[in-house]
């Protein structure tokens, strides 16, 4: 089947880009001056002790050998052990992964939920003042950096009104309500910038929908405007919008790193910053690789999503 071949082709590209990304991350981090020995023994350590430790950690082996053994570890699920604490990297990452994943997911969902109606409204009324206001409003959100929004939200809703916690995190399994309460402010600040940007794309996509001949046909057979937009417009606009969403995911991960600091959330971002500070490269490598892999995988899913959304692409050699 042509579709199966298309999906297999996309999976091949995914594996290839994961390999390239892993090599890039490994080389970049290992090329940094000052390896783990300096972090463990301090800068004034005895050269003999340093070379002994290097041999012990396997750092005296050539770069490509170390890369291959790291890659082997990645594939078999062994992320290595922390240089400083000696803990398995996986045990450091997993508890924090849930925090970041919750934040990123909720941030994305929130931005879609706000951007879709806002962008559609701006598109429908683009020739009127209210459409202009909706479009301007969404520009405003884009101009405010996420961390500034976060600080303002904390001041208003946590410090002044005392409605929501100012920071921290509670596990979903422990207390779903508290989990959600802790996530509201961080994900709102994350969604503010992201949603504003998305609203622009939503508006553009629906301006196009509104001028399409098939949209006029849908109206001519008796659909009212908004039902026609939901029934025929969303599906057609989605092809361009999921591309944007896939690209935005990377930005949102970066945003989450910052937001976790603002809200003192024990997520991957704060782990990453801690370990960069401590020069624990094994942990940093694993965290960066995890984030990059997630972004690449989601973008591959986006490409497969095109096939579901647009029948014209099925069976083509080129997917885009």
């Amino acid at each position: 089947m042509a579709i199966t071949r298309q999906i297999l082709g996309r999976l091949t590209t995914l594996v290839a880009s994961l390999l390239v990304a892993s090599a890039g991350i490994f080389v970049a981090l290992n090329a940094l001056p000052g390896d783990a020995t300096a972090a463990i023994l301090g800068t004034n350590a005895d050269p003999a002790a340093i070379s002994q430790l290097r041999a012990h950690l396997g750092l005296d082996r050539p770069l490509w050998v170390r890369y291959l053994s790291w890659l082997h570890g990645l594939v078999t699920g062994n992320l290595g052990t922390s240089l400083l604490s000696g803990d398995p990297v996986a045990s450091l990452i997993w508890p924090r992964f849930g925090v970041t994943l919750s934040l990123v997911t909720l941030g994305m969902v929130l931005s879609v939920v706000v951007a879709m109606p806002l962008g559609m409204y701006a598109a429908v009324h683009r020739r009127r003042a209210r459409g202009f206001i909706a479009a301007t409003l969404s520009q405003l959100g884009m101009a405010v950096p996420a961390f500034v929004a976060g600080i303002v939200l904390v001041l208003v809703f946590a410090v002044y009104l005392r409605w929501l916690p100012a920071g921290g995190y509670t596990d979903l399994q422990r207390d779903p309500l508290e989990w959600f309460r802790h996530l509201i402010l961080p994900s709102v600040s994350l969604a503010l910038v992201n949603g504003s940007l998305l609203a622009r794309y939503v508006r553009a996509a629906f301006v196009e929908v509104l001028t399409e001949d098939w949209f006029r046909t849908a109206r001519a057979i008796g659909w009212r405007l908004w039902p026609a937009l939901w029934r025929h417009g969303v599906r057609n606009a989605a092809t361009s919008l999921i591309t944007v969403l896939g690209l935005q995911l990377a930005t949102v991960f970066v945003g989450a790193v910052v937001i976790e600091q603002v809200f003192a959330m024990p997520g991957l971002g704060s782990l990453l910053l801690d370990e960069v500070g401590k020069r624990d490269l094994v942990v940093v490598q694993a965290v960066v690789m995890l984030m990059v892999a997630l972004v690449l995988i989601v973008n591959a899913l986006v490409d497969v999503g095109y096939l579901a959304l647009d029948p014209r692409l099925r069976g083509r050699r080129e997917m885009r």
Partner: protein
Amino acid sequence: MTGVLEVDDLSVDFGRRRLPAVRGISFSLAPGERLGLIGESGSGKSVTALSIMGLLPENARVRGQLRWRGENLVGRPDAVLSRLRGRDLAMVFQEPMTALDPTMRVGRQVAESYILHRDASSGQVRGTVLEALGRVGIEDPQRIADAYPHQLSGGQRQRALIAMALMNRPSLVICDEPTTALDVTVQATVLRVLNRQLASVQAACLFISHDLAVVAQVCERVAVMWRGRIVETGRIVDILERPRHPYTATLVAAARFDPSEPRAVPADLDAEPGAVPDDLDAEPEGAPPTRPYGGEGR
């Protein structure tokens, strides 16, 4: 007697600068009557059609009256107009290539025009849809219903669109250059399908075209539009012999009549619903889905 539609001093202008597109036109359509509306691009034909449908963009301003069975439609809310659209008042557009939703199977789109005006679920309508596709001369309705628009030829798409428009046996069908984007050979068969379908549901028709020869295959009477006004109205045979307005004269001179083409088919003849004549599928199947016109005249 009152017509299905009476257009009374209709004017349409656009935007803040009030650019006029239609300047005070009047005409009326009796039940089952067919009127050609002819003129060059930009003369206001399509704007007239869209204003009757209530599908003009937000920045359009409509004055005058559009009386549907005696009731003025101008300024009525979309909730009222959308109930009329597709049920009593249908439209076939110029661009069959782009007039169907590319992400939805053709059968479902045809079904929508039926379901929207009834309490029916899509499961029950399948038979009705296949029947409707058969009536417009699609010889393999099962396959076409399950196909996506890009898998169909231009002629097949326009037939599907005609089936959609006539699904609810409307009293008026507005056709906006329905064959302009089609090959000449396909044009003739699609016009024949349209003629037969209009006759079988006894719908009135406003047929918009820039080609007098095409109009003559569907209508007896024609109104000539020029720069937003109707400059001449009459029977086609009379206008051909004695054009009064200079623009009409150039139209007549430009029209090419093929003596083998049938002239206006009388409405009471050839009205066998469901009958599929053999010669309708002369058009090659699966023709390349290119877009011959760049959306001209809009």
